[in-house]
Each structure stands twice: as structure tokens, then as C-alpha cells.
């Protein structure tokens, strides 16, 4: 990881020095070791705070919606999962591609600070990693014990970039990403309702899931619009809370790249990504396998009509 970080800093330094880019979007060191934050670096000197380590779980792509519209070219480091979001945003014309220099960086799963805490570590003094292990403060963990939920099932690969920094160290996923979806599908309707009722009863409607989501880039979200009549800051009953999440999942269906940020940021640890994965699994089944964000050109199954499209009767039976 150290050599990757060194190579990234070298790249950023070279591009800033040559003037090819005027800004760098990456991650900045925190106060407790694991609390790295996304940051924009505007000078070689400021790169002293630049970091890339096992804690850089945040997806940087969405920041480019704003940053790429500003003056000057920006260098961005994209992990495999971030690059799918990036492609999808390019496809949706949300990012000005000509203002972005992309460097793909490899990733072998990022640490979940909550899992680290469950293992008694609240302050990271030193960390290193191999493809399958992370060593924090001298204690070695298997990746599957300690990485973010979104990383456990990751099969994403390095796509096309302006440049790639990789040492060809790829981690194989520990879990099938549809395992939990299948479990939920196997439940009775009442059991499934009880599952989501418990989970979503914790929602505090902070909108972190929406605001972090690279598929949620409406300039003005309908739920923030006073004139929409549904600017719901409070719910009239507990069912409304569920509706918010269900509607959001519908809204991003076919565009969600399964980056997993919604579940990473939820302060109540609600597994929101499962709603999106259910849609992904249905789309795969009904339209053939499809991965949003794999390219920047193709039309998605839900935004493209073909005569071979699935009919409701194919799903529900009848005529």
C-alpha cells in the first residue's frame, strides 16, 4: 500500500508541476488514523497531507460533479468501484470529462472503522496490508473480518483511465453479492416486512445515503423542494420512512453501480444497498446481466426500449 501511495504522490506531483492539472482529488490524513477525508489538493506542498491507505473507503466520483465544472483540470484517483460511478456520471452528462484526468488505482478492500472498533481498535497508529490481510497497530486481521460490507462482495475491475497505478494485486470477493437478496426473497412477505420495519425504524432521515449516492445528482431533490408538496422533513407515520427509501431505490434502479456508499455512510447501519441489489438482481434476471457504469456509452436496460423487452406477463404470468 505504501508503494501505491508513493506512486500516487509522484503522479500528482508530476502533473501539478507540469501544469497539466491544477488540482488533485484524493484523500487526506485524519486525527485518529482511520478518519481519512476526501480532499482537494491545489499545490505540491499541500500533498504532505495526502494519503492512500486501507481506510480510503469513500467514493470520490460524486465530488467531480461540482469540481469538474470549476476552472482548471483536476486529477482524480479512482478505485475500481469509484470508476463505475464515474462512468455512469459521464454517461449521464453530470461530469465535464475534458476537465478530469483519471488515474485508476487498485484496491483490495477498505477497512470498516466500526468493525475495527468492535475488535478493540479506536486509534490507528500504524497500518499495513497485503492482498488478504490488514495489520493495524501490530494486530493482523483477515480482510474478510475487517473490511466494509461493500468490499466483501466486490468483483469490480480496473476499467479504462488516462493512467493506471497497479501492482496487479487483486483480492477475490469473500461473498456472493446476491446472497442476502436471495435470503430476503426466500422469506414470507410478513417476515420480509418485519425485517425492513426493524431496519428502517432506525432511519433518522439525515439524507446521508442520498447525498453520498453518485446516482443521486438532481440539482434539487424533490424531497428538498418546498414546492413539491412532499418536502418531507417528518413522517406522518412509520410507513412513510420506508417509502422514502423504496422510492429512492426505484429512482436509481438501472443506474446504481452497487458502490455501496449508502450502507457505508448510514449512521444507523441500515443495509440500504440490499434494496438496490434486489433491483440489480431483477434487472439481471429480466434483461440479461447488466452492470451499470461498466462503460460510458451504452443505454441501460431501463432507459432503452427493445421489442425483446420483458413483459409484465413474463414476470407475473397471465396475458
Amino acid at each position, binding site marked *: 500500500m505504501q508503494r501505491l501511495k508513493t506512486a500516487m504522490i509522484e503522479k500528482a506531483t508530476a502533473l501539478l508541476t507540469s501544469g497539466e492539472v491544477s488540482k488533485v482529488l484524493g484523500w487526506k490524513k*485524519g*486525527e*485518529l488514523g482511520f*478518519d*481519512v*477525508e*476526501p*480532499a*482537494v489538493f491545489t499545490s505540491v506542498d499541500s500533498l504532505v497531507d495526502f494519503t492512500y491507505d486501507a481506510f480510503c473507503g*469513500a467514493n470520490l466520483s460524486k*465530488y467531480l460533479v461540482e469540481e469538474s465544472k470549476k476552472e482548471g483540470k483536476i486529477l482524480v484517483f479512482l478505485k475500481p468501484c469509484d470508476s463505475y460511478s464515474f462512468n455512469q456520471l459521464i454517461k449521464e452528462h453530470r461530469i465535464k470529462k475534458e476537465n478530469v484526468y483519471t488515474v485508476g488505482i487498485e484496491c483490495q478492500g477498505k477497512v470498516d472503522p466500526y468493525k475495527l*472498533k468492535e475488535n478493540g481498535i*479506536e*486509534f490507528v497508529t500504524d497500518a499495513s496490508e497485503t492482498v488478504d490481510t490488514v495489520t493495524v497497530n501490530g494486530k493482523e486481521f483477515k480482510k474478510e473480518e475487517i473490511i466494509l460490507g461493500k468490499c466483501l462482495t466486490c468483483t469490480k475491475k480496473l476499467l479504462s483511465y488516462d493512467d493506471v497505478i497497479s501492482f496487479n494485486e487483486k483480492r477475490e470477493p469473500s461473498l456472493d453479492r446476491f446472497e442476502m437478496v436471495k435470503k430476503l426473497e426466500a422469506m414470507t412477505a410478513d417476515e420480509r416486512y418485519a425485517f425492513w420495519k*426493524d*431496519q428502517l*425504524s*432506525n432511519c*433518522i*432521515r*439525515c*439524507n*446521508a445515503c*442520498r*447525498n*453520498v449516492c453518485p446516482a443521486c445528482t438532481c440539482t434539487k431533490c424533490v424531497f*428538498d423542494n*418546498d414546492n413539491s408538496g412532499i*418536502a418531507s*422533513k*417528518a*413522517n*406522518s407515520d412509520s410507513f412513510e420512512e420506508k417509502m422514502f427509501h423504496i422510492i429512492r431505490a426505484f429512482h436509481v434502479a438501472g443506474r446504481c453501480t452497487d458502490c455501496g456508499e449508502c450502507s*457505508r*455512510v448510514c*449512521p*444507523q*447501519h*441500515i443495509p440500504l444497498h440490499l434494496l438496490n441489489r434486489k433491483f440489480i438482481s431483477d434487472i439481471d434476471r429480466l434483461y440479461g446481466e447488466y452492470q451499470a457504469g461498466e462503460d460510458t456509452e451504452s443505454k441501460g436496460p431501463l432507459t432503452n426500449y427493445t421489442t425483446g423487452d420483458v413483459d409484465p406477463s413474463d414476470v407475473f404470468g397471465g396475458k
Partner: protein
Amino acid sequence: MKKIALSNIDLLYKEIAGAQELYLPVKVAGATNFKKFEDGVEVDIKSLQTVKSAKDLFFPQSEDMMEFKTSGKSIEVIDARKKAEPFVLFGVRGCDLKSFEVLDKVFLAEPVDTMYQAKREAVTVVTLACNNPETSCFCKVFGVDASNPKGDVQATIVSDEMHFEALTEKGEKLLSSLKCLEDCEGKGVEEEKAQIKEKIDALPFVNLDLTNFKGENLMELFNRPEWEELSKACLGCGTCTFVCPTCQCFDIRDFQTNAGVKRFRCWDSCMYSEFTKMAAENPRKNQMQRYRQRFMHKLCYFPSNNDGEYGCVGCGRCVKKCPQSLNIVKVIKKLGGNK
């Protein structure tokens, strides 16, 4: 003093809940929050911190105020405020108790907020000393002693027992009504407190320096260029404000139902773009301005208006919960430094 073995603590919850409503940390779907005690709930008393703070009990996320019913040309106004029945709030940590003082300064100042006041008066607070403070805790910076949190009753866990000391008349009344407790000398309590203090002194953020944050420096702080960098990664979500025990901003809205109009108030967040929307314009146009507002309020405006009392209690929830790891500690370090 009184005590009970932790192995029997369910008896205590049941006895309290038999006489009045009891709210305490309950785990649902993996997340611990203050919830009403009922048979079968999973009480999570040992976990240091609930996700949402205890302010919910006095200042709920959403609360009905009044209803309007129209018939012909007349409008009937119906008081929708719920009557506050006496209740016990159990397992409040020192930081959250301190937050009640901060909220009191807002809601109990003239004109008194009667919805808040009713619930504040109805509560008996049982605090709990923090046996294992976390690295994200910095309550000491704001004058909180987590080993000695006060309240109506103060509880301390000493090995496998919980000890109770009544500190107010209300607390006295609660403790003396509970048959499942046994009298004790409070053996080991002082030693436990001393150990907690030692642990707190070793935490990484206890030396944050607040001296720079005062009214006289308002403009200087407001204009600091670092706000841009500090707020860069802010998503504009409401996580920090909603998990914060002292954030007290709310919105009042009308909800049209078939049966008339309901007026409710609900938490609002200065992180949201519409928060300052007014008829003429929205004076806070970008996230940096909103971000700056939140911390200036807590560290500068609030103390200026409240005899130096800060609008932060150092609970560390924002440190743990911000999706992008922004928090008040980074702000204080950048603009105030360490002692």
C-alpha cells in the same frame, strides 16, 4: 446508596416500567438508541453511546403542535400537544446530561417552549458513569466529568453490580420506591471513578484549546480561509446535526390531511440547502457557509450569548458518524489548536 447485580438488572427495568414509562438504550437491528422499555426488547446498557442522543425525549424528531379544522367559514384550532406523563430516562451519559443544560438555555429562556418544558419537568434522569470512554470522547474539554455525571440519580457499574446514588428529591423518590434494590455502602465506586478519570486524561482529544473561541474573535474566526478546506468534503447531509445532542434547530410545517391541517415541528439542519431560505433570498449559498455556521454557532455565537457556555459537549458522535470524517475536533484543532 443502593445497588443491584447486573445479572438481575431486568428486574429493575421491569419495576421502574411498572410504575412509569422507562426509556433507555435499546438495540434494534444492530443500532442502539433510547427507546421505551417493553417486554422482549434488547436493552444495551453497556454500550457507551446511543446513535441518536437523549434529546429526542424532550425534543422529538417530529412532534404535533396543533390541528386546524374548517367547517364553512369557521376554523377550529385544536391543541395537539401530548400531555407529558412522568417518565424515567435511564443510562444517560455525562455528555448527554450536559446537553440538557445547553438545550434548557434555548428552550426554557423566555418565551418558554412549553412542549419542551413539560417533558423536562416530567423526567427523572438516571445517569451512568462511562466505564470505558472512547478515543472519540472529549467531554472533558467542555467541563464534563464522565465519571461523575450527576442527574437525579447517578449510577456507576462496579464489576458486576450497578450502584445508585440519589442526588435530587426526584431521584430520592425513585430509588426509595424500588424494592429490587438493596442498600449498600457504594464499595468500589470511588475507585471506579478514579480509574475512569485516568482513562479520560489519556484520551487523544482532551487537550483541545478553546480559548480562541470567544465573541471578541467572531469576525476573525468567521473570515478564516481554512473554512474552505475544512468543509470541502461536506456532503450537506444532516447526520452531524441529527446525532448531535445540542443541535436544536427545528422547522414548523403544516401537513394537509383529509380531516384538516396538522401543524408539526421537526428537526431541521443548518447543513441543508433550504435551511435559510427566505422570501427574499437564501443568504447561505454554499456548503462552506453552512458548515461554518454550524461550528461558529457552537463555538462562538452560543457562548457569546450564554455566559461562555459552549454549544458542544464533546460527545464525539460527529467524530464517529460523519460519512466523510469531518467533525468539530478537526475544526477546533485547525482554528484553536491544542493546549
